[in-house]
């Protein structure tokens, strides 16, 4: 305070006082109008830094929420499709079990076959289902249709075109959730445990390991029959015998018997195509028209040929314990022990742990159509082989569903947590930057009061002059 106030200093003082209080009022007005305490960094530099850091964190959370959202919708779509698939498989199991009843007629079997085929198609449609424009079950090859049915010599077969790639969603700092669902893991498996034969021909696994996926058909055929003609009897048609089979023609009883199979009566006139069957189901068709009428007890030996791909045939003599066969189309390699083979036929073999459920259903339908004239026992063998795989496939699907469910619940939890975090961060941010209205209003009225007082005192001060008293 100056001891000697002068005209100009007095005026300046009054002016600056008014200006300062007016500025406080305006600042309060600004805060009330915007609701913000910090309108520019210098309003509260430390606060600005803190608020900025909250805003950056909110942005990060937004990014994670975006990932969670994208993954959730996709996985929930996948989940509902897989539930449908699981339902189909349950139904397929009961149909397959019903179809294995030995008393069924061929027509009934055909009916079941078409049912199973339809289910396979439905299952494949699920496998090919998409979300948006993206296939759900093709791994990271998301625009490639994952499943496709191709015709092979062994019947219809499904081919997977997707990949096994993993894609993940980043849902937190260093927290990633797997969002991939490769069809090769959901509908199939690639964990080979060994090769199983249906048991029709008596072929077994050789000593060396095998390699392949899904099902293969091992074809054994009789190339030639040795031991006939004898007494005017010749082989006239189908022969499915492999190796030595005793052939007894009993002239007295008028029967023909192959091995331990049933004795077949010889009718007159002498038949040109008498079918005799061994106990293992192998067949020998005989022409008796030139029979001399003399009975005999001999041996008919079937010379066998074997093939995995149905095109290249390998002759065998029944002593092979580790014959290597390949299917160039599928790349499968099997080693077979042929010492127990007694009959020809098409044998289903499965590389366990590598089958595709769609393949299994298609294979069942193929078996039931029975276009290879399998006898019921052989059919049953093949069907039960496939049923085991169907059960395993369904288990896998359920495991996938469970896994999917746990991923979904992880995502749900992440969503919840991130949502909470976002609200919390927003709260903290607004705490820093938002104006406390009651405080601002208080400030404002204080500034107003001071301004009024300053105006009043200023006016009084400026009126004071000696001149007022000089007459």
């Amino acid at each position, binding site marked *: 305070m*100056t*001891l*000697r*106030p*002068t*005209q*100009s*200093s007095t005026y300046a003082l009054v002016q600056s006082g008014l200006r300062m209080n007016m500025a406080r009022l305006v600042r309060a007005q600004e805060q009330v109008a915007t609701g913000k305490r910090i309108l*520019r*960094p*210098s*309003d509260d*530099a*430390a606060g*600005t*830094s803190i*608020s*900025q*850091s909250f*805003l*950056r964190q909110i*942005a*990060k959370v*937004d*990014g*994670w929420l*975006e*990932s969670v959202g*994208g993954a959730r919708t996709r996985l929930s779509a996948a989940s509902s499709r897989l539930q449908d698939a699981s339902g189909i498989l349950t139904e397929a199991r009961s149909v397959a079990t019903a179809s294995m009843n030995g008393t069924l007629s061929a027509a009934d079997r055909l009916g079941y076959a078409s049912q199973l085929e339809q289910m396979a198609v439905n299952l494949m449609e699920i496998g090919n289902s998409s979300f*948006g*424009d*993206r296939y759900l079950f*093709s*791994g*990271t*090859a*998301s*625009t490639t249709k994952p499943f496709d049915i191709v015709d092979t010599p062994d019947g219809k077969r499904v081919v997977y075109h997707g*990949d*096994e*790639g993993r*894609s993940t*969603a*980043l849902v937190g*700092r*260093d927290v*990633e959730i797997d969002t991939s669902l490769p069809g090769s893991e959901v509908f199939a498996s*690639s*964990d*080979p*445990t060994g090769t199983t034969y249906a048991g029709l021909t008596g072929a077994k696994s050789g*000593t*060396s*390991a*095998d*390699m392949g996926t899904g099902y293969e058909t091992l074809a054994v055929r009789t190339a030639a029959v040795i031991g006939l003609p004898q007494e005017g009897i010749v082989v006239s048609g189908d022969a499915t015998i492999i190796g030595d089979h005793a052939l007894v023609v009993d002239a007295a009883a008028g029967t023909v018997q192959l091995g331990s199979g049933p004795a077949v009566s010889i009718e007159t006139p002498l038949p040109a195509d008498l079918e005799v069957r061994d106990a293992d189901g192998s067949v020998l068709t005989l022409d008796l028209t030139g029979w001399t009428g003399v009975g005999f007890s001999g041996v008919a030996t079937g010379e066998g040929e074997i093939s995995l791909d149905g095109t290249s045939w390998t002759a065998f003599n029944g002593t092979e314990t580790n014959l290597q066969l390949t299917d160039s189309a599928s790349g499968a*390699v099997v080693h077979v022990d042929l010492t127990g083979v007694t009959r020809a036929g098409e044998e289903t073999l499965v590389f366990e*742990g590598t089958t595709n459920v769609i393949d299994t259903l298609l294979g069942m339908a193929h078996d039931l159509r029975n276009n290879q004239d399998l006898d019921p026992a052989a059919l049953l063998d093949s069907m039960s082989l496939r049923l085991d795989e169907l059960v395993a496939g369904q288990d896998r699907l359920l495991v996938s569903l469970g896994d999917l469910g746990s991923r979904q619940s992880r995502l749900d939890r992440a969503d919840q947590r991130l949502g909470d975090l976002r609200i919390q961060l927003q709260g903290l941010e607004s705490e820093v930057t938002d104006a406390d209205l009651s405080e601002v209003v208080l400030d404002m009225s204080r500034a107003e009061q001071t301004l009024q007082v300053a105006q009043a005192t200023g006016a009084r001060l400026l009126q004071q002059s*000696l001149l007022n008293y*000089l007459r």
Partner: protein
Amino acid sequence: MSGIGLNIGLSGMLSSQKALEVLGHNMSNANTPGYSRQRLSLGASQMLLQAGGGVLGNGVLASGVERASDGILGRRIVSQTAVAKALQASLGSLRGVESLFNPTGHDLGDQIDEFFLSAASLSTDPVDQVRRNGMVQSAQHLTAQFHQTADSVASLARDSENRVDFLLGEVNALAQEMVGLNQEIAQVEAGGSSANDLRDRRELVLGQLAELVDVQTVEHSNGSLSVTVGGHLLAGHDLAATMRSERNDDGTLELFVGNTTKPVGVTGGEIGGLMTFVQDYLPGLQARVDDLAKNLVLEINRAHSTGAPLGGGFERLTGWVSLEDADGDGAVLDEKLSDAGLPFEVTAGSLFVHVTDPETGAVESHELLVDPDAMSVGDLLESLDGIDGISAGLDFFNRVQILADGDKRFDFTARLDANPDGVGSFGGQRATAGSAAAGPFTLTSGATLDLSGTSGPFQITFDAADFADINEATAAEIAAVINADPASSAGGIRAVAEDGRLYLQSTGQGASESFEVLGGSLATAVGLPTGIHTGQDLAVAVELHGEYSGSKNQELTFTPLGDGTIGTTPGLQVEVRNAQGQVVGLLDVGEGYQPGSALELGDGLSISFGVGTVAASSNQGFVAHAIADSDTADLLVGLGLNSFFQGTDAEAIEVVGALVDDPSLLAASGNGAEGDNGALLELLALQGEAVEGLGVSFGESYSNLVGDIGFEVVATESAAATEESLVDSLKARRSELAGVNVDEELVEMIRFEQAFAASARFIQVVQELQDTVLRLI
């Protein structure tokens, strides 16, 4: 007596009248800026008159008009004003900066967030074109924001500089006025009187000058005042120098006084404040924004360059970096990579290049070793060009360009080579014999290799001339010699160098193929097993699965322990060694192993072996690469290949043009699969991570920048307020001393009015006395 008496009265009246005039002058100048109140100096006039021995005075004498002033206070006001004005000018400019970085919700920080959000969105569906467009667009918004910020900073600098130029004109006008005043004051004061009003005026001019620049003053005995700026005379007694600005070579503004060639440092006054802002503060700010842009380019490109676009690979790629001809010989190819003017540092390391054939899905992986101090641009292009399926060169602008041959595609991802045994050196169909270990091998000139193929035994001789250094012969060099020998092809034998190892193979495939290693010094040096090596019909299919989760690149060498058939031979094992030669795994692949089933290798990887036989006795084996970072050399970033952003500062940062034209080139995939989002996840991780070049994350860096601007404004504000209040208090003191208080003047007025009346009355008394005397006559 009467004459004297009248004179005394008259002097009283006149001096009172003069005093009233001075008071009037004071009162009328009560509001004149810079005016110092004046006082009439009065003194008793002494006249030596002997009148009865006493000395009698001769009335009052007005000796002059004095001005209330304090020279030291005046100088302090001048220097303090310069300081306060400088801070005010800085504050004004900083407010401009602050408004640029106001958190608006659409600022640079928000744009960075937006960019990462769009990347997160794309990561949920990397195939989606709309999201790809979205990410490119948000990146363009980001670069536009960078440009705008850089432009605004530049225009702030320009505005300040223009203002400086304008103010210099004022300085020069004031300096002229100063000289004029100096001359007038000297003239007036030469007569002995004080040029009060002129001095007030000069003090005012000096104050105005001090508001613009910090001036120093020296007052001369003749009353004139020399004003200097930074030691150079601006205004003297008869000469005013001109103050001017010039731009120096690097574009910054410099100030000069008169004809001096050395710039003067001005820190005070408005000009000083503006210059400090332009020269010290803004470059620092610009550098921080540029640094943010540069690191963003570097880090985003690091993540992006090792990604793959839609379609799994590139047909062609051109870098955005033009290589420089540092030694000026007109050729770029001879420059070492470290001298080729790359915007980002290339370090010693390696780059993986994969060439894929979309038709067959076959992948060929190559590891390119990079040493920027030893490798020239030409060497690099040569080794790139040497990779099967791609060709590399420089385009017209000296940018590196890579083209795929035919329908092939290439990429630089950390993809896994699913079929690591590319040459069939591990149970392949060809008869194979391998070297005992990876090269280089120590050979002597004249070393021999005796082989026997389909056409009988033959010998190959190796000469020192065949090798760069025969003591460090590489497998590739040895293979080249063997393959060049016509006897090899005639005998159905070829040599292959793979991962540093040498393999001899039959050219035909199948169980009927065989050749014999008879011996020779090379066979011993390299460790080629002697004896007959036979092929097989079934090749062992080796497949690598999974995604490598390790943090370092790994080179895994697989060799069989013993000879046997996969899945059949009891106890057959495959040994896995890392690059350091340590055994990191033993895989049971004998009896009990199901061919084709996966064996865990750790770090997310597994391997499966198909049916077939393998032979340790033939030194069979293969190497698999597990890639964590496919470009440890940062070569792609350095050359600007497969970049997302280009440019190295806020002004130049751009989204690479090819991406804008075709967002499907956005490299989202980390392994070539279209639905993979590996590269994006890597990019997204950058959002929260502290970045090497910044020490903090991008967002934090920006937050800190904004916070620091706030702090700067607050600090300057409070400093300016402090300095200003100091000026105010100095001015108040000056006003206390020199200002006019009207009331005070009125009191004085009454005093002198009365004194005038008294003097008049005295004259009347003297006159009456005289009349009395006259009446006596």
